[in-house]
């Protein structure tokens, strides 16, 4: 099976769209000033109170609540200025075909204001917040503004990719994989052979599955985000999912954090709810670890006690709409509380090193023992 999507024109189109959005944002503000109106722009409110679960699209979405940034409001003025600075910088990056990291953006724009000790930005938290606001306000993906995400995570499997003129086979990289870069909008898929994408929480588990040749035996692509999947990896998974129509199967720890990682892959995150459509893969399925695995595979001896923070986190999650309405999830989380334990992916090594590859994953995936 092979897919090809090399389209320079398409890339140019995206670039133009992004530039139009940014210029449009600036033009609207200047137009207001020219008409002697106070300039302002709206931002969707990105707080939990404005987040809901879209039952149709099966993703987290932002509600209609917005707040505004008004230049003439004393409390807003600094953020307004910062927004203009970041917008104009992004315009330059796109025009010069450069992608920039979050902290690089901060340093690139930081300078002191005349006659004061005040800087345009005091730290990268400030610039990051304004960037989030801007992204939400313009409805343009950060990557399309040429701000790249943290590079962390890798892919391994029978897929040949092309980026920046290079073409490489991700199953021909020894024991390592391809380090997924922060910017993947321009990745093209040359060909591939896989039935699904296995998204793996733990990088040591990734290493085990590479060693055990799982990608061949189960015919899949292995992707890890080394813990919580960073947005770059999530975006890359989404791109693969869209282009190849491959289902995603999550393989995470049986604990509140594993569940949240899964929920973010599937429905999107609270923080980036305004971009769920560009990140979330609603038909993601959950293969493990489940609380039932502990009994089925006799793992009682290698569970870990829940700490108070874990319990608190479970209770928090049980309060989220998109958890609350899913009886299978609720059952797992409540069982977790009842048993007072959590179970890690690597606990499967207690059976034998190749247990996960030879028995656990084949059995559960072939028999579709999923939690949806």
């Amino acid at each position: 099976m092979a897919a090809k999507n090399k389209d320079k024109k398409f890339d140019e189109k995206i670039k133009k769209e992004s530039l139009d959005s940014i210029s449009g944002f600036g033009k609207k503000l200047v137009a207001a000033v020219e008409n002697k109106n106070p300039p302002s722009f709206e931002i969707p409110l990105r707080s939990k109170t404005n987040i809901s679960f879209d039952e149709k699209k099966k993703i987290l979405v932002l509600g209609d609540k917005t707040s505004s940034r008004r230049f003439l409001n004393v409390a807003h003025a600094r953020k307004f200025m910062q927004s203009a600075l970041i917008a104009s910088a992004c315009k330059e990056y796109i025009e010069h075909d450069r992608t920039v990291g979050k902290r690089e953006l901060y340093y690139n724009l930081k300078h002191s204001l005349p006659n004061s000790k005040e800087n345009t930005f005091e730290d990268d938290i400030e610039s990051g917040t304004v960037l989030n606001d801007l992204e939400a306000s313009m409805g343009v993906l950060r990557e399309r503004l040429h701000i790249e995400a943290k590079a962390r995570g890798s892919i391994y499997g029978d897929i040949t990719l092309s980026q920046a003129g290079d073409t490489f086979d991700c199953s021909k990289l020894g024991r390592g994989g391809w380090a997924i870069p922060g910017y993947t909008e321009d990745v093209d898929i040359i060909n591939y052979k896989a039935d699904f994408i296995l998204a793996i929480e733990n990088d040591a588990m990734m290493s085990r599955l590479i060693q055990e040749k799982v990608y061949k035996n189960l015919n899949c692509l292995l992707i890890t985000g080394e813990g919580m999947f960073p947005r770059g990896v999530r975006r890359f998974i989404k791109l693969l999912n869209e282009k190849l129509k491959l289902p995603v199967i999550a393989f995470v720890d049986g604990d509140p954090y594993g569940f949240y990682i899964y929920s973010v892959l599937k429905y999107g995150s609270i923080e980036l709810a305004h971009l769920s459509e560009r990140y979330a893969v609603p038909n993601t399925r959950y293969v493990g670890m489940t609380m039932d695995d502990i009994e089925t595979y006799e793992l009682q001896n290698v569970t870990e006690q829940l700490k108070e923070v874990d319990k608190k986190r479970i209770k928090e999650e049980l309060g989220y709409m998109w958890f609350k309405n899913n009886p299978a999830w609720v059952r797992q989380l409540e069982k977790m509380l009842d048993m007072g334990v959590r179970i890690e992916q690597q606990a499967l090594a207690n059976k034998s090193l190749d247990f996960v590859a030879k028995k656990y994953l084949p059995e559960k995936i072939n028999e579709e023992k999923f939690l949806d």
Partner: protein
Amino acid sequence: MPEQISGEKLFEEFKTVQLSEFFRKNRQYLGYVGKIKSLTTVIHELLSNSLDACEEAKISPSIKITISELGTEHYKVRVEDNGPGIPEQHLEKVFGQLLTGTKFHRNIQLRGQQGLGVSGCVLFSQMTTGKSTYIKSGTGKGKIVEARVEIDIKTNSPNLIDKKVENSIMRGTVVEAEFKGVQYTKGIRGPFEYIRWTAAANPHAEIMFKDPEGSEMLFERVIDKVPKVPKEVKPHPSGLEAHDILDLALKSKSRAISSFLSSDLARVSSDKVSEIQALVDFDLAKSPKRLEWPEAEQIVKSFKKIKFMAPPTDGLIPIGKDQIEKALNNLLSPDFIEVISRKPTTYKGGIPFIVEIAIAYGGNSGRAAASKEINERKVEIMRFANRSPLLFDAGGCALTKAVNSIDWRRYKLKDMENSPVSLFINLISTHVPYTSAGKQAVAGEEEILNEIRMALMRASRSLQLFLSGRRKASEIAERKKMYERYIPETAKALAKLTGKKEDEIEEMLKALVLERFGDDKPDDDEEEEELEEESAAYDEIPEDVSEEDE
């Protein structure tokens, strides 16, 4: 079993001791404990006595205090006043007999009350140095008496030595005594601080202080008016207990309980007497001498059910709002001051009291930190009872408790502990409920606590307004500068974004800002709050998630 001893034998040594002997063995009851505190207690007793005397005599007090160092832990204290003087025949007892005085039996507000003050000093001097105390007094009527006085401890009786009488119209009293085992300090619990606080609460007095190093400090008179003379007042019914009623009834000259009640108690009119009669089951016409305990209890019960006018304030002489303000302005030069004087009320026993408090902020307010760095000031609580400073036992004092019970954050005073604030609290009462004879802490009577709290809360609200007003003013200036910084940056960025001319955008933005704010229009508070709410909402996102999501 050993041989038992009979009661008769045990009582062979049975005797009654004198107060003087009791206090000699228990000098801590009089406040003479610790080297520093003992010396401060001496100054307190003598200074209070002079002030009381001057006020009773309607004289503007001029007092001179000298402390000289005679050796290690050995000091001489001399206090001279321009008061009314002490008549020759009373000199002995005033200085030489404990629990003797003019005030104990009167329901009147004075600093000293129990006849333990000056005589206590004489006793303490005698105990530590074996010396008698030098006194000199004139009433301005042509004679002055000079003598040394000591106390015969076994009999609690005075002993005058070297008495000389001269002709002179000098008026006033001089007391000079030596003390050992005491220590002078300029610190917070020492005589200097005591005198400074006294000056704060007594703006009508002029006090000159010469310290052991020879430095002279003058606390000037800020108010020329002598405070009103405190009048003896009748006890108020609210809160009187049965034993008080019986005590008063026995002393009464009235022939019927009804007239006793209306003439010997305050605010009991004949209407009120009828109300009382309706509530008790015996005839108020009988003689007060024949009042019995259960009847007294009935009267007390009836008091609880009847509304009386607030107690008369004649016996209570507060310092007064203006006077406190003048005194503290003179002493602290604060940026802000608010003085609250509460209405008179009573606590248990029908004892009337008034609470006066002041909050001073900025200037020299607050306690300077040990490090002496500028603006490093901490909150200072200046406690007074009848204008007398309370320097010790702050922890056990109701005045401190009242302060600590205030939630300052409600008044946006976030770090009260480290603010340049002086809290002035003066409790005025005919009978201050001290926790011990050392007279350094007020007992926790609920009514008193409440009054102080109310006053503090009101003054705190004013301080809060002052501070937010001050913030507003600096905000307006800040705002102008802020837009001067932001406009060029914003204009440049917008120009880059749109290709329009930078300087044109800049001019237009300037015009908009000028139009909106003029020079000093206030901010739009509502929007600020909206923003705050919004950021608060962000905080709800669990940290671990939002971090990972960057």
